[in-house]
């Protein structure tokens, strides 16, 4: 496959006692679309800033093409960044913002500083504005642009320098839903067109699944799982990943034998193997993998406590022995009705117990959790920043 471009080895970032990154090991391939996904404060922005050269790791190494880059300042890295709130230069117009990087004299092979001819600058800027659909806007002050347009300027400004890697720090965080969807497609198109590596930071799992070749799920300064979107969704490594990616019911279970897991004292067929006999495990059951059947026919029986119409399906909350599940079906079951459920063996995913066990997967406080996911502030860069004591208040 494609070759490895960037590697982080045992990267640790700490401020005093506070450990922000805890032994991160990660490699990124050329032309890959890799997403760092996680809640705010998980260390994803810090990781990005280490790659960008804005931070040096407290311990560990960063390699680009096999060369150690720890102390190389950002302006000497073949990496460009699209910042969270774009960081466009307010005193320059669209053209000058995009041309900014091109106007900086670069050292050529002999180490002499060379400036690009004005003609070439003009040509490259115009080309890039065309790529991001901003032709005709070059003379506008950036403050006169809409959020989406500013976003495109920021992308153009970064890409015009032909970086090997483009870092994107929650680039869509400030856009509204619809624009966001459009830009996701646009970004993917640009990435494929330019054939470069994108390292994308987001807290939005949908975005991550939709765009990435590889997703890195992070929490608490640690990588929880690396994999393709499908792997991550279908085979979460622990309760955190299972919960963070999509909806899931996570239930305590006991592995009775290979392919047999016991939940609520009932045995279910599953596909998972390789656990100790009678090992306590976490069991993930995705809401869409549950079939609602008559109470009598069900493997488990419970009471419907809430139903929400979601367009494509009903989100039904069902109480099983005091534990609330989320079930997504097209069938409508009225509140307080007794139902039974059936789960196919491939609908059950068994995970080892981890530090996250018991923290997720119960829908007792369903509505709140749902909201929480929606508004998980895109501000984690802010948090990281204040620890450095930079320019911000």
């Amino acid at each position, binding site marked *: 496959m494609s070759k490895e471009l960037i590697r982080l080895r045992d990267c640790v970032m700490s401020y005093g006692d506070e450990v922000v990154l805890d032994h991160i090991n990660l490699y990124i391939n050329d032309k890959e679309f890799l997403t760092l996904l996680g809640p705010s404060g998980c260390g994803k922005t810090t990781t990005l800033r280490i790659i960008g050269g804005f931070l040096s790791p407290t311990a560990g190494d960063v390699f680009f093409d096999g060369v150690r880059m720890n102390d190389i300042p*950002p302006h000497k890295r073949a990496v*460009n960044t699209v910042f969270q709130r774009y960081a466009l230069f307010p005193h320059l117009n669209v053209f000058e913002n995009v041309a900014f990087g091109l106007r900086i004299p670069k050292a050529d092979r002999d180490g002499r500083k060379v400036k690009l001819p004005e003609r070439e600058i003009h040509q490259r800027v115009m080309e890039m504005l065309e790529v991001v659909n901003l032709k005709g806007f070059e003379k506008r002050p950036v403050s006169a642009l809409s959020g989406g347009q500013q976003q495109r300027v920021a992308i153009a400004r970064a890409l015009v320098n032909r970086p090997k890697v483009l870092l994107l720090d929650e680039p869509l965080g400030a856009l509204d839903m619809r624009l966001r969807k459009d830009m996701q497609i646009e970004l993917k198109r640009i990435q494929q067109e330019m054939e470069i590596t994108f390292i994308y930071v987001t807290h939005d799992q949908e975005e991550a699944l939709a765009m990435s070749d590889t997703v890195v799920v992070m929490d608490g300064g640690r990588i929880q799982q690396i994999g393709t979107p499908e792997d991550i969704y279908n085979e979460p490594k622990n309760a955190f990943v299972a919960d963070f990616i999509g909806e899931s019911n996570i239930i305590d279970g006991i592995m009775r034998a290979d392919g047999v897991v016991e939940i609520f004292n009932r045995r279910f067929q599953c596909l998972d193997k390789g656990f100790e006999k009678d090992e306590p495990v976490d069991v993930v059951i995705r809401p869409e993998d549950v079939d609602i059947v008559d109470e009598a026919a069900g493997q488990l029986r419970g009471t419907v406590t809430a139903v929400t119409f979601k367009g494509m399906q009903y989100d039904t909350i069902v109480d099983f022995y005091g534990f609330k599940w989320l079930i997504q079906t097209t069938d409508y079951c009225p509140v307080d009705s007794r139902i039974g459920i059936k789960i196919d063996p491939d609908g059950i995913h068994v995970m080892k117990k981890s530090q996250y066990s018991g923290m997720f997967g119960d829908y007792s406080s369903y509505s709140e959790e749902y909201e929480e996911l929606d508004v998980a502030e895109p501000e984690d860069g802010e948090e990281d920043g204040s620890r450095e004591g930079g320019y911000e208040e």
Partner: protein
Amino acid sequence: MKRSNHVGSRLFIGLVFLFLYLPIFLLIIFSFNAGDSSAVWKGFSLDWYAALFQNRLIMESLYTTLLVSLLATAIATAAGTFAAIGLYSLSKRRRDALLVVNDIPMMNADIVTGVSLCLFFVAFFQGWGAFAQWFNGVQDVVELPVRLTLGFGTMLLAHIAFNIPYVILNVAPKLRQMDKNLVDAAQDLGCTWMQAFWKVILPEIKPGIVSGALIAFTMSIDDFVISYFTAGSSTSTLAMRIYSMTKKRITPEVNAVSTLLFLSVLALLVLNNVREVRQQRRAERQEIREPSFFERLSMRFSQPALRWARRGAAAALACGFIVAVALLTGATYSQPVVNVCSWGEYIDEDLITQFEDQTGIRVNYQTAESNEALYSLLKSGGADYDVIVPSDYMISQLIEEGMLEELDYSQIPNFELIDPRFRGLPYDPENKYTVPYSWGTLGLIYNANMVDEEPDSWGALYDSQYAGSVLLINNSRDALGAALLHLGYSVNTTDEAQIREAFELIAGASRRGVFQGKVMDQVFQKMEGGNAAIATYYAGDYLSMLDNQADGVDLRYVIPEEGANWFVDAMCVLKGAPHYDNALAWINFIASTDANLANMDYIWYASPNTQALEEYPAYYEELYGEELDPELYEIMAAPPEVLERCEMYLALPPATRALYNSLWIELGI
């Protein structure tokens, strides 16, 4: 309802502006006055503008003001911006602590800042003197100056010190508002930190820097107090010059200089405002238009090919400015110099020019308000004078404290011209330290149109019938002296009871509201303008007043029957004066007959020069084509029988001096 409200509010604002601007307009109007009063209009003229450019004391101080303000603004802006960026790279806790210290100079009263800096400089100079002496002793490669004094440098430092906080206060919010990612973005796009600073940070915080610089400049221009305490004796800003002038007589040249200042600032403001309005309109309309001439010019200059030319031009301008400043200051400082401190309006200024032309020595001429003020100035270490002209009793005090240098009379041949009457006087019995400058009497001046009967006793000063119209001389020795004479005591008494009795006389009158004020040289405008009826002052100054009295004012001078004080002011050289030889040259020049005649004619104080004293009536007649009124001449140069009745001040012992001081302050509070 709404409408009338609007009119009302505008009317109020208008009235406030009238209040703010009326005095300024009056100032401007009277700069065109043909007469020299600032209250009586005598016709239009531009004379004062012509006189202004001739008046080197004002012009020099204007230059000093502008130079110190510009330099302080430039340095403080650069340093403040630098510091602000540094502050914002620190952790919040440390930054906040530093910002508290940063607030101190802004929150502190100017006088506290000024005084503390003054004490700091003086303490530093003492330490430095000891260090330099030691250092010069252990090696002889570099010769460090041992004696440092307050001056332009310390004033500049003080200005920078109080300007920096304002710059930081203005730059800091811009840094705070700046998107923290901008610098990252610039670096990400290939800038080094330095490039990012010039290309991104600077344009972003420029408004803050500009307003910071503007406020710093305003504060510098507007400052008087801090300069007053840190400039020492050898430099004066315009404000300090005016302050010392208000002590005597302000000539409308000051109005002229204020008018020029005001108009230039107004012009700048209007230009700037017009430009801003235009820009705003353009921004509002998003108007597309042909670039103006200046914009095309600047566009041309901003073309990369011309960037080096542009940079060169900027560098050349900066260098030019520095070179100009260096040349100007260098020219003034490399030249031999003599620092003279005298009293206000106490010399014919042409003499200064003549001396400079003859000898090539530049005269740095400063004035002090009174003997006591001069003494304070010398004590506080703020003075680097060579020649001072104190009065008799102060001279003996200075000699006693070892603050004067013996004179080399072989370099002052004109000393021979001094009348023997004025040599070997009690203050300098062996004549080792002094060359007399002038002499005279201290008597009563009154406006004959404001008193019922002509006073001939010091008692008039304490008479309730003149309540509110008497000016007390603002100098403990003279004020108490008059009271002592009135009570029949000697002016040189050390008897505490007598002094206290004299003090009670004054304090009682003060309680009864007899005194309109305590004045020194302000007595001129007060008496000339008919603003007060009775004052104590010097004979020579009375004669000056005669020339300037307003209509309906009839000033007279009398030596009261109780007798009066007669005084000699003499030139002396301070111990360790840096320009000893130049000082002697100056003293010799002033002691000459010609200089004495010119001075006598200008300041109306009697000369100690025998020839000059004799020749003056003839000199006057030749100059003005009319005979000198012998009565006036007698007032100027009191005849021996009058002098008989007068007593000279002697130096008082420290205890008595301390008593004088404390009584005097008690009177003020």
